């Protein structure tokens, strides 16, 4: 038996966690492209460095994004990955699939690509990992015929994503999947045709647990919430306690604002103190439910560190009703005003959060026509460097 050509990677087939190396090898059997990826990767493991070049301009007719061009630095040695572009397909809301749809994705990719995928990319797309330039347009043609469209890339709206929401979760305060689908379709142009100073992302979670990490990685995070009282089933609470839940330590003491009290029989709830953190609900989902006057908090500015540090999204709209009947018009009006301002004011490669920081929240709020309210901040300013509007002065 001949010695393996990928001893380093082979080692990653050991162990209990499923192996991506095994996955690549599966394809390598039939696909020279996958075989060369494996060999190139082995070299990377040996040399401790990647061997990819900057992407060149490749794309689909009528689209300004959706494909990441990728070429190896070593095309002579690894001709199979001379061109090894990825294509981003927009996933259905909540990543629900029929097997039929998934199999179609696989079948087309088997013929026209490496057979390797990421299910899914960090933004949410189906990532088709590795094809050649000449296959890009045919791939698109085939997928679009089967009901799939490209996801986002470049300086435009990125593929929105959302948690499973009402489809599989009792905490959902908004219909995340419908909202995500609606917005994605409404903003197809923004998604597909780069035209902005930089990327912009929307992510939607049904409640403050934020199961898609919207607050940390989207410029516009829509997080379901409510504004009335928790619904408490006292009998069910007692049942939890009887079954051994240390309600004082685990629930009461961990409420961030001391909104709860347990007198041994009844769970007392100070509605005005509750900041809707979800903790008590999470801990006793059978006994405590969210309120019924539901909507969303809109947070703006979330992003990774480049350039000005990572930002978490900030509360801009504390509560907005998310009305399907109204086609989510209120949110659309808001986000469009925000984009317009940002598009106008931002420097190249400046995310909206950075523009807000540079120009001041006051200017952003005027642009989106919102009144400042204390819910937008943790604390008021400590420095005295206040700007005054001309109309404030005598």
């Amino acid at each position, binding site marked *: 038996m001949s010695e393996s050509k990928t001893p380093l990677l082979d080692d990653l087939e050991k162990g209990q966690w*499923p192996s991506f190396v095994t996955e690549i090898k599966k394809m390598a059997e039939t696909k020279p492209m996958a075989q060369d990826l494996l060999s190139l990767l082995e070299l990377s493991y040996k040399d401790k460095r990647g061997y990819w070049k900057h992407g060149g301009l490749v794309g689909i007719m009528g689209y300004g994004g959706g494909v990441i061009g990728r070429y190896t630095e070593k095309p002579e040695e690894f001709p199979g990955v001379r061109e090894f572009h990825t294509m981003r397909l927009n996933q259905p809301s909540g990543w629900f699939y029929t097997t039929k749809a*998934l199999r179609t994705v696989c*079948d087309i990719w088997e013929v026209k690509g490496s057979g390797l995928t990421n299910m899914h990319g960090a*933004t949410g797309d189906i990532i088709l990992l590795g094809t050649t330039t000449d296959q890009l347009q045919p791939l698109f043609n085939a997928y679009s015929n089967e009901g799939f469209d490209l996801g986002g890339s470049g300086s435009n709206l990125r593929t929105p994503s959302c*948690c499973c929401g009402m489809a599989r979760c009792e905490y959902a305060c908004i219909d995340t999947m419908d909202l995500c689908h609606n917005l994605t379709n409404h903003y197809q142009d923004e998604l597909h045709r780069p035209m902005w100073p930089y990327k912009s992302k929307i992510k939607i979670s049904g409640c403050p647990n934020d199961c898609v990490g919207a607050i940390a990685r989207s410029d516009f995070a829509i997080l379901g919430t409510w504004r009335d009282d928790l619904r408490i089933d006292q009998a069910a609470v007692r049942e939890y306690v009887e079954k051994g839940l240390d309600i004082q330590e685990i629930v009461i003491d961990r409420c961030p604002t001391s909104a709860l009290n347990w007198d041994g029989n009844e769970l007392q709830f100070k509605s005005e103190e509750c900041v809707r953190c979800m903790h008590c609900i*999470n801990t006793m989902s059978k006994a405590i439910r969210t309120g019924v006057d539901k909507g969303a908090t809109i947070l703006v500015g979330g992003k990774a560190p*480049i350039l000005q540090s990572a930002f978490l999204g900030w509360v801009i709209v504390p509560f907005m009703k998310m009305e399907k009947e109204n086609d989510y018009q209120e949110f659309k009006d808001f986000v469009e005003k925000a984009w317009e301002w940002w598009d106008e004011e931002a420097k190249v490669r400046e995310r909206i959060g950075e523009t807000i920081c540079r120009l001041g929240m006051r200017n952003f709020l005027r642009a989106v026509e919102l009144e400042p309210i204390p819910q937008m901040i943790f604390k008021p300013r400590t420095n005295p460097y206040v700007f005054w509007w001309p109309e404030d002065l005598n």
Partner: protein
Amino acid sequence: MSALTEAQIDEITKKGEQKSITDIGPPFYGDMLPQIIKDNYGKWKYHEIPKSGLLVHTSETGDKLYTVRVGSPRLVSINFIREICDFADKYCDGHLRFTSRYNVELLLSDKDKVEPLIAELKEKGFVVGGTGNCVANIVHTQGWVHCHSAATDASGVVKVVMDELFEYFTSMKLPAKMKIALACCLNMCGAVHCSDIAILGIHRVAPTVDHEAVKNTCELPAVIASCPTAAIRPNPKLKSVTIKEERCMYCGNCFTVCPAIHIVNPENDGISIWVGGKVSNARSTPAFSHLAIPFIPNNPPRWPEVVDAVKKLVELWKDNAKKGERMGEWIDRIGWERFFKVAELPFTDKHIDDFTFAYTTFRATTQFKW
């Protein structure tokens, strides 16, 4: 179910070409849902997790949905997807989903099929788990598999860390959820900056400039503006730029905007470890991860030092946190100065922030622990 033939695909392709339409948007999620979800959409009342890998959601209608969660390496072949589809066809009327952390969820309405499904999954080598207070699947990125910017590999590091923490994926014995994420460079694709433990690839030397190429391929003002620390100055003589090495902190942003700048350096690229971030609003507010270990060299294929470091952090937290306390909540309670002591991690000047908001991290009080 047999796959489409090449001929069929050619036909599909041609049809698509003829239609030549754009902007159809994603497939409609409504078409993807199993009947039980359609029936109970928005009506779920509560859930239980009878054991690791199994969620049971009960509806106001009384219906129960069983979800079996299957671990995935994310970088998967179409074979993997097809196999999963086979399970879904056999047990779930052809329906399944993926989670925000790449796991596969098989959705059943029939309780009796749950155990057989789990049994068959395990038999075929799939891993079931990843629910409740577990080490969740690791959010990660491309690494040496596809990205030009990577300072380390992604999938490989994830694989070895998950191998080591495997028992915590398939059980629910941790104090709280443990969300690990990995990004292979400072661009931080994925929410690694808000993870209980973040594994981050970093470069450590200033990029080199190919002046000849800069002239032809890069917009100088954009390159200069790209640098967060103003390390890049115009070099009018060469019609290029000069990087002031002592101001560069290797973020790679200049490299991103200009292909004529090179940042990869195998000797000095490697991994840093960050701890204590979170995303959820539960109890404490969302929080960034903080630097714990500034640098570990790349040591493929199994990155033993990284695995060891992550493992130790998880064990330390597990042994010391109160029930329900996330990593960062535990550290906040004991204090970072205590954390460095109990974690036996060297504290260096790298841990002290020196970027824009640095001053907010300096200890402006005499209150501290020894």
